[in-house]
């Protein structure tokens, strides 16, 4: 206890630099964490995409009509619902096409006073897009049940247990409030995402076909019919399954008359390249910050030791050995680094909540403690060791007797 008190007393006259060091290190570590989080986000979206049961015969399809054009009241294009359903029909009639996987229909509702999104999974989506679950299972019930099955995803549902029933409200177009009771059969792995196909560009990456937000995925099979009618189309593009490799080229050629096609494999390979590019673009900033933080670490440590060397002469007189004093100083410096790492750790652990409440806005990130700390800890250890070695080289040369003489004169 008194040893700790003694070590703590060494911070006096050094508080400002200590706070500066903690601040700079925390900011740098968080920049690093964020870059790793971004990188992991691209990898995670790619993993999600690979976890779908899409395969080489599947293509992403974008009809020629853009959504902006469709929304233009002057134009005499069809409504999005109409256009999409026509396109789906047309594609389904094409030879060689096995199935059309449409973007899920959406309903915005309310759960415990918070707005939420419900996405309806039809048979095709259920078959191809059963995303990784934290707990529970994907929909197996095909008959209508009292409570429709639902999979919950995201921070809003963190306290909802698998097997429990929840009550959701939503407003119909005519303003009437409707209620549904749902039975949670599974929970999505974090971060929560569900398929949404509404891209208009020609380069499509895995992260684009996911909507990253809290969601209730509903099983269309046992959803009351009227609920399905209240849902809205969420994207006018879709995936198309082609029956076999033999039909592939012919089928693609004929559907390309209605729009643009992007093969599954191409999306996969483009996304990998995109992930690598993104990390390359994102890396310079954290590296710069880490450099600054290492320099701060070094200069604050040296400043710390230099400021405390004159006092060493006094402590030495009364029985403090050189080794002990140096160790005490280094514990002070290590503690500052530890505090920064701890701040970083708390940020990472609390990130889902901070993001949910809008306290932090980091764009898309996936934080995995183990991954992050396999970068943060070695960095901190190396940076700290360098500072300690440098301080040692300064402190080593000081003899107490020389300090008395300097102070005497």
């Amino acid at each position, binding site marked *: *206890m*008194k*040893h700790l*008190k*003694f070590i703590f*007393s060494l911070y*006096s*006259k050094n508080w400002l630099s200590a706070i500066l060091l903690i601040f700079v290190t925390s900011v740098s570590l968080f920049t690093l964490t964020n870059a790793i989080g971004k990188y992991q986000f691209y990898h995670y979206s790619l993993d999600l995409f690979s976890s779908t049961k899409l395969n080489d015969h599947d293509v992403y399809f974008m009809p020629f009509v853009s959504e902006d054009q469709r929304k233009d009241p002057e134009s005499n294009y069809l409504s999005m619902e109409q256009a999409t359903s026509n396109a789906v029909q047309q594609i389904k009639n094409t030879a060689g096409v096995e199935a059309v996987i449409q973007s899920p229909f959406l309903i915005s509702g309310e759960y415990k006073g918070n707005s939420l999104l419900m996405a309806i999974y039809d048979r095709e989506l259920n078959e191809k897009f059963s995303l990784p679950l934290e707990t529970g299972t994907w929909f197996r019930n095909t008959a209508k049940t009292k409570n429709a099955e639902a999979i919950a995803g995201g921070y809003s549902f963190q306290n909802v247990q698998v097997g429990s029933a929840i009550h959701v409200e939503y407003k119909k177009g005519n303003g009437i409030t409707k209620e549904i009771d749902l039975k949670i059969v599974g929970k999505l792995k974090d971060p929560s995402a569900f398929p949404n196909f509404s891209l208009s560009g020609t380069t499509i990456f895995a992260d684009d076909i996911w909507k990253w937000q809290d969601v209730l995925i509903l099983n269309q099979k046992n959803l009351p019919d009227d609920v399905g009618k209240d849902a809205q189309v969420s994207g006018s593009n879709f995936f198309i399954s082609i029956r076999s490799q033999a039909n592939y080229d012919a089928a693609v050629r004929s559907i390309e008359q209605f729009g643009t096609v992007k093969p599954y494999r191409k999306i996969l390979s483009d996304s990998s390249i995109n992930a690598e590019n993104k990390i390359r673009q994102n890396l310079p900033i954290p590296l710069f910050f880490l450099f600054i933080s290492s320099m701060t670490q070094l200069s604050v440590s040296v400043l710390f030791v230099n400021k405390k060397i004159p*006092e060493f*002469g*006094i*402590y*030495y*007189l*009364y*029985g*403090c*050995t*050189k*080794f*002990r004093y140096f160790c005490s100083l280094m514990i002070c410096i290590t503690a500052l680094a530890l505090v920064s790492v701890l701040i970083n750790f708390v940020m990472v652990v609390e990130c889902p909540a901070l993001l949910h409440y809008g306290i932090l806005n980091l764009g898309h990130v996936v934080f995995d403690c183990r991954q992050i700390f396999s970068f943060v800890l070695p960095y901190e250890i190396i940076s700290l060791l360098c500072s300690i070695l440098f301080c040692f080289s300064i402190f080593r040369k000081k003899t*107490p*007797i020389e300090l*008395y003489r300097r*102070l*005497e004169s």
Partner: protein
Amino acid sequence: MITLEHIYKIYYSHGVEFQALKDVSLTISDGDFIAIQGKSGAGKSTLLHILGGIDDYDTGTYRFNDTNVADFTNHQLAKLRNSEIGFVLQDFSLINHKSVLFNAMLPLYFNKTPAKDMKPMALNALRLARIEDQAKKPANQLSGGQRQRVAIARAIINNPSVILADEPTGSLDTETSAQIMDLLMSLNKQGITLVVVTHDNTVAGYAHRIITLRDGEILS
């Protein structure tokens, strides 16, 4: 009891040798009061530093209570300084921004004194040095005489057998000097051995024995 036999101390600076102590032999018995005098540069501080185990010597033997100090490890030397020796130096030796109490209890951080005893012991030492009323003040708000009292309180906190003082009254006026010397004398009367380096003949007048150094040698 302290014995020095044929101590030599050589400083090397910029390739030049300088003999700071030459063949110094000295016996200091328990309860003694010795004043060390001599011109500036005569080697007084050097001798005191060697006695205190904060500087080393080149040849000769230094025995503290019949143990050869040369055989001590760093740790044992630190223990010697902590428990057997109290230092009072001219005026720099307080940690200025810390409280008087912290300064007085500083030696207790480096031995096995339980944390809860530290404050009472420090207050007691400050009382013996008649400065306990200033315990909470930062050291840099004290006058020269008060600072020296705090240094004395710190020196006696571990009941040392020897107090080594280097110009303890060097920056004090005559009246305050006399008060500090009275305080040191009273400690000597309680059995603590006193070695005081001083320029001041009045201060030296308190001593049982005066040793004069010239160019690193003791004048007999």
